[in-house]
């Protein structure tokens, strides 16, 4: 199998051009063909000499991977199934909303984190995605020219695949790449502190942290990562970071009935988030098979939101999208397809 050009950064492409004896500027030309134009083969890179294209085609392939299945929800959300280079499968959701089209990308095949409420965790971990496989989830859907926002909230924990995630962000936000504003990209983590700090330093994209409860003993029953990276450490690091005026940090909070929806939780959230300019996204729980957890009722959800807003924490409720095709938050899984 030939190496893929798709997923390489400008630096990678320039290096390989020079190694092949091609002019240095060929790297930039390739980047533009790969990330800005509607082609899918090296042969179509027509501003490269025929000899250059032959040289490249001898060693590399363009590298786009087609989706093998698309499902469409009654609300317009689409779920794409992509094979990976290692014979596994990942899912990607495209969520249309008025004038926005948000793509929710996966960063790993499966996940190691084992959160109690997440379907992806039930398939364990089957492998890392390359930067190319991450960016392919945007570039290789029919709506790619219309994509306005990208969220790294699909399968996997992005900061457990940090190098490839950072590389994908470079491709998405560079002038030679997709030239997207980093302010239209959000990377979500459950709080892997070293990865989070490197991301904050090297990227300008927004950060979202899966919190789900402000209490440690509750969180460690829901999210085993709490044992290694306590929420307090995550919050301490966020408090120490200067997010500037444009960059946003938000906290994801799935609201479970009788577990994390009480006034005590509102009070504690206010306490621990004091001093952080942030937003809380409340998420309705989408039940998964065998779960002992139940989503809170609509009335409690609204009250919870109001109380947080009254206390000065900007709080929104995320609309559930694509639930009928299992594309909603926490439902992505390719376990039955062998990963």
């Amino acid at each position, binding site marked *: 199998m030939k190496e893929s050009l798709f997923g390489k950064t400008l630096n990678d492409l320039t290096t390989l051009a020079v190694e092949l004896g091609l002019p240095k500027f060929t790297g930039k030309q390739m980047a533009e063909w790969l990330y800005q134009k509607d082609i899918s083969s090296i042969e179509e890179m027509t501003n490269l000499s025929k000899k250059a294209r032959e040289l490249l085609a001898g060693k590399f392939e363009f590298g786009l991977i087609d989706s093998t299945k698309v499902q469409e929800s009654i609300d317009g959300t689409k779920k794409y199934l992509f094979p990976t280079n290692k014979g596994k499968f990942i899912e990607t959701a495209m969520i249309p909303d008025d004038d926005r089209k948000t793509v929710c990308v996966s960063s790993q095949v499966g996940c190691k984190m084992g959160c*109690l409420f997440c379907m992806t965790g039930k398939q364990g971990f089957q492998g890392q995605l390359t930067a190319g496989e991450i960016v392919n989830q945007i570039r290789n859907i029919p709506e790619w020219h219309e994509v306005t926002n990208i969220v790294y909230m699909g399968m996997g924990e992005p900061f457990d695949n940090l190098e490839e995630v950072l590389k994908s962000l470079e491709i998405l936000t560079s002038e030679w790449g997709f030239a997207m504003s980093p302010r239209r990209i959000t990377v979500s983590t459950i709080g892997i502190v070293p990865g989070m700090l490197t991301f904050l330093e090297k990227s300008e994209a927004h950060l979202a942290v899966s919190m789900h409860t402000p209490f440690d003993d509750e969180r460690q029953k829901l999210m085993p990562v709490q044992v290694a990276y306590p929420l307090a450490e995550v919050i301490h690091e966020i408090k120490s970071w200067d997010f500037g005026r444009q960059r946003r940090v938000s906290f994801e909070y799935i609201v479970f009935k009788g577990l994390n929806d009480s006034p005590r939780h509102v009070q504690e959230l206010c306490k621990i988030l004091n001093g952080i300019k942030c937003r809380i996204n409340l998420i309705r729980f989408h039940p998964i098979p065998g779960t002992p957890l139940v989503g809170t009722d609509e009335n409690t959800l609204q009250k919870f939101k109001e109380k947080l807003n009254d206390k000065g924490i900007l709080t929104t409720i995320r609309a559930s999208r694509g639930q009928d095709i299992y594309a909603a938050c926490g439902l992505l899984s390719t376990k039955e397809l062998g990963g």
Partner: protein
Amino acid sequence: MPKAEEYKNPNLELIEVIITGNQEISPGVHLISWKRTHDFHPGQVVKITADPKIAPRIYSICSGNDEPEIRVLFNVKEDGLLTPKLAGMIPGMKIRTTKPYGSFKDGKEPAWWIATGTGIAPFYSMFRSGISENKTLIHGVRQLNQFYFEDELEWSLGDRYIRCCSQEQSCNVFPGRVTHYLNQINDLPTTINYYLCGKALMVVEVRDLLISRGVPYQNILAEIYF
């Protein structure tokens, strides 16, 4: 109830320590040790690196809390950056480590400890710290030589030490995975605590199995190796 803000910043700065031992206790599995400089609760972890340029990784402590040394059990990953380096280090050389931290702690209540592979480490630490009364330890491995510390555990825990091996067979060893062992038990206790440690898939499968058999999820505490 402990609150997130009550945790002080762990201030997990790396400090240099001198290795006092590094033994390959099974093919590709090492037990590395250094002088204990801090108190810890059995079940806690440390971050370790052999080189400031390599990001530290988290390992469970694998020694008793009143022993003079801290020990850590690790698998050598051939394509890894850290573990091949750690494996090659000899007593007298220096590594960098944090203070112990983490909240994977057991108490006096009855509990089942369920581990796969090097996930035995926190439970061995609890055992060496004298927390083994009322505990049942279930250890799952692929090969018989991966039952680390088995002589000592068998001697002390007797019937409360259950070995499961998925690829080799031996007397007194359950032939199969931990999940198979648990599946064939008719009456799993539902009021005790369960502590799980190992890879993600084992943890989620065992957790789902326990919940399906009536164990409240609040009674299950997991530590996943990642």
